[in-house]
């Protein structure tokens, strides 16, 4: 038993790789390099050959795991196929991107091996031959280092924690075919085609300035404060998940792992605590300004400029000051 296997995820119709798969591949390569082990990849689908060849083009031996039952993702299909592949290939480490899909089945797959998933890993290093994986506790307030002394180790890596694999100059490696045995009856869920609720009218991803509001705003009536600030700045208004869950702002204004990913010139976070799920959606911003009453709020970990204080006093003062500046 040795080596690293990276499970590459595809978009729902299997036509392209999920954007986070190359981050998982980078993490897998880093782990393998630290262990002086091999790094392989796997692509699952009903006709995975061409994507498997694309991955192999990066110099990684790649399994094309092929079966008609893998045309669409199901937890049962993916778990059964990968269980069989792992039984044959016997990797010691299995690396996933911590996507919604991996969250749906990676822990189930690990359970089949009487193992655990070390999920949402933000960093890894190899200390004298032993990998150490870091994951966040308490919404990012603490980092916990994990080891996995023996047996098969399942790890998923957080979005944005590893720069996407850039090694495409290597000579192409081998594509190996793997045909798992899957019974239609063993797949107990029937998924539909993905759909959207409504046409998206707000594209936060191209907004140069974003004012974002979080739970600290307290009441829906108080939103006017941040709306006025956004208007003064000529900014798009965004929000963290709880604000959209409450229906105070439409879901399309949500930034984070379940919403939009943004990279503005300025991200002004008002009353946003900075849960991991929010941070992954905005840590690409050039400048982050955070206003929050809690000095320990994780948002300050990513903020360039921080103000610890009462947003109900600071935000109106800031709106006034911006308007005064513009008028001068």
């Amino acid at each position: 038993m040795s080596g690293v296997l990276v499970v590459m995820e595809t978009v729902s119709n299997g036509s392209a790789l999920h954007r986070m798969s190359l981050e998982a591949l980078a993490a897998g390569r880093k782990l393998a390099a630290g262990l002086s082990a091999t790094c392989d990849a796997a692509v699952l689908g009903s006709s995975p050959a061409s994507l498997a060849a694309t991955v192999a083009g990066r110099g990684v031996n790649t399994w094309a795991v092929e079966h008609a039952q893998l045309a669409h993702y199901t937890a049962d299909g993916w778990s059964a196929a990968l269980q069989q592949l792992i039984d044959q290939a016997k990797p010691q480490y299995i690396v996933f991107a911590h996507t919604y899909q991996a969250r749906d089945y990676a822990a189930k797959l690990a359970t089949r091996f009487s193992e655990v998933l070390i999920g949402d890993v933000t960093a890894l290093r190899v200390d004298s031959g032993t990998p150490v994986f870091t994951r966040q506790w308490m919404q990012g307030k603490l980092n916990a280092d994990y080891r996995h002394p023996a047996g098969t180790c399942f790890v998923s890596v957080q979005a944005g924690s590893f720069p996407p694999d850039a090694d495409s100059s290597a000579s192409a490696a081998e594509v190996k075919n793997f045909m798992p045995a899957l019974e239609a009856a063993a797949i107990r869920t029937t998924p539909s085609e993905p759909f959207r609720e409504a046409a998206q009218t707000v594209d936060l991803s191209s907004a140069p300035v974003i004012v974002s509001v979080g739970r600290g705003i307290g009441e829906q009536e108080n939103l006017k404060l941040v709306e006025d600030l956004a208007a003064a700045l000529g900014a798009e208004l965004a929000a963290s998940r709880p604000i959209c869950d409450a229906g105070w702002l439409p879901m399309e204004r949500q930034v984070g792992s379940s919403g939009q990913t943004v990279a503005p010139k300025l991200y002004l976070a008002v009353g946003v605590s900075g849960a991991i799920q929010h941070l992954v959606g905005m840590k690409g911003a050039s400048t982050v300004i955070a206003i929050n009453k809690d000095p320990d709020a994780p948002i300050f970990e990513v903020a360039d400029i921080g103000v610890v204080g009462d947003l109900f006093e600071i935000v109106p003062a800031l709106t006034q000051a911006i308007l005064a500046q513009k008028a001068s």
Partner: protein
Amino acid sequence: MKTESPDLVLTGLQSDDLGAGQTGVVMAELLGMPHTTLALHVELQPDATIKVKRELEDGWFQHVEMKLPALLTVQSGGNKLRYATLMGIKKAKSKETRAVNAAAVTARHDEIVKVAPPERVKRTEKLTGAPAEVAQKIVEKLKLEVKVL
């Protein structure tokens, strides 16, 4: 849980503290039930089948159908929170509760070697003062450094 033979098991998606998001997924495997994560709405169909609306990434959704018994992990936002009423809290005292012994926990496979606050990767400049002063300092930065004014 096995002795209860439930038709439907609901868990949260993930906890606020460890954020592992695995309890429901692992339990479904151990109970031999189909499952889906990130459930927002569920409808009972004929033939003891449920149709679940689940959240995907980037604003997409999907319906998933499965036979009961099944397990769902629930995403926030699908339903309004329902807080306990005073009457409900009073009535709860007369409801039956049963204590069961957990089977001995087997040795864990992973090992936590260190827990510490994260090292700061970014130097945050803290602005202090009265609200009007802080506001003026931010405006200066927006004008001269961030250049959005």
